[in-house]
């Protein structure tokens, strides 16, 4: 039988995923604290000053990870929302719902840190540039997804409407990513590309990657905690939630 004998779908059911998620949160939280400590140390004490931008470039160590997260989380959210409709798995839809606020937060932070980096470098907090505008649209997509789901009482219809919006809006992700190539923009090109050697110092790259990993594990912990709330809310009338509450009191 081998691998086939393990029921992989077991963890796609909310009542088995709920305790699993609960066991993963402390580990992810611990790793986040360690990675943040290493990442911040590298960002401020190891990475050298930039020969063009002086110290201002240190905003990059949170700006780039936040911007990456804003796009990754949207894609993961859209895939979960789509799976929820195609496979009819409730947990996938709940994951999509739980991802949206964190994605919106990182989108806002990418815009905020970008504005504070733009002012000293470009002389303006904001320009209607292709990269900045498409990232602002991403923020509106997240807000639209959350408001749409909040406005519909029936969870199944809320999931369906949200999935439609998330999937249609996914077209914006390649637009954000390639905007710096497709249009003449003020925004600099990709910090890391797959086809050429990185143009920045190794310590700068290390700081950025460690901060990115820290944001990933942070997202994992906070989204799992939120999806546990979603599960409890939507399954509140089930026997397993009743048993769980009894065992707690």
């Amino acid at each position, binding site marked *: 039988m081998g691998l086939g004998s393990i029921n992989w779908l077991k963890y796609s059911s909310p009542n088995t995923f709920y305790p699993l998620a609960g066991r993963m949160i402390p580990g992810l939280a611990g790793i986040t604290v360690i990675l943040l400590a290493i990442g911040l140390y590298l960002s401020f004490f190891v990475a050298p000053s930039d020969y063009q931008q002086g110290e201002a470039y240190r905003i990059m160590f949170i700006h780039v990870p936040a911007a990456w997260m804003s796009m990754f989380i949207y894609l993961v959210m859209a895939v979960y929302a789509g799976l929820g409709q195609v496979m009819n798995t409730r947990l996938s839809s709940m994951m999509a719902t739980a991802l949206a606020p964190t994605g919106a937060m990182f989108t806002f932070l990418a815009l*905020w840190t970008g504005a504070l980096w733009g002012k*000293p470098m470009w002389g303006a907090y904001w320009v209607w540039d292709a990269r900045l505008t498409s990232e602002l649209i991403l923020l509106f997509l997240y807000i639209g997804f959350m408001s749409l789901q909040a406005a519909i009482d029936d969870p199944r219809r809320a999931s369906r409407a949200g999935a439609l919006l998330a999937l249609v809006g996914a077209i914006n992700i390649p637009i954000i990513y390639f905007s710096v190539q497709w249009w003449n923009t003020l925004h600099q090109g990709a910090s890391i590309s797959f086809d050429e050697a990185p143009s920045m110092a190794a310590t700068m790259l290390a700081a950025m990657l460690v901060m990115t990993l820290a944001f990933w594990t942070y997202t994992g912990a906070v989204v799992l905690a939120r999806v546990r709330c979603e599960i*409890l809310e939507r399954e509140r009338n089930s026997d397993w939630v009743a048993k769980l509450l009894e065992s707690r009191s």
Partner: protein
Amino acid sequence: MMGDFFSMGGYGFYIWGSYLVTAVFMMVELVLVMRRRRTLLQRLGRMLRSNVNRGQS
């Protein structure tokens, strides 16, 4: 020495404005999720007890 660190070569406002707001947002998000869990468990606990009292359990 410390002053140098905080002034960040004149970019202190922009750098600390970025890092501080990021830290505040991430911590507030954590607090909101933990508070949501706490109030939810309290509410569901009350709901369960009232059902037991009415003999629906």
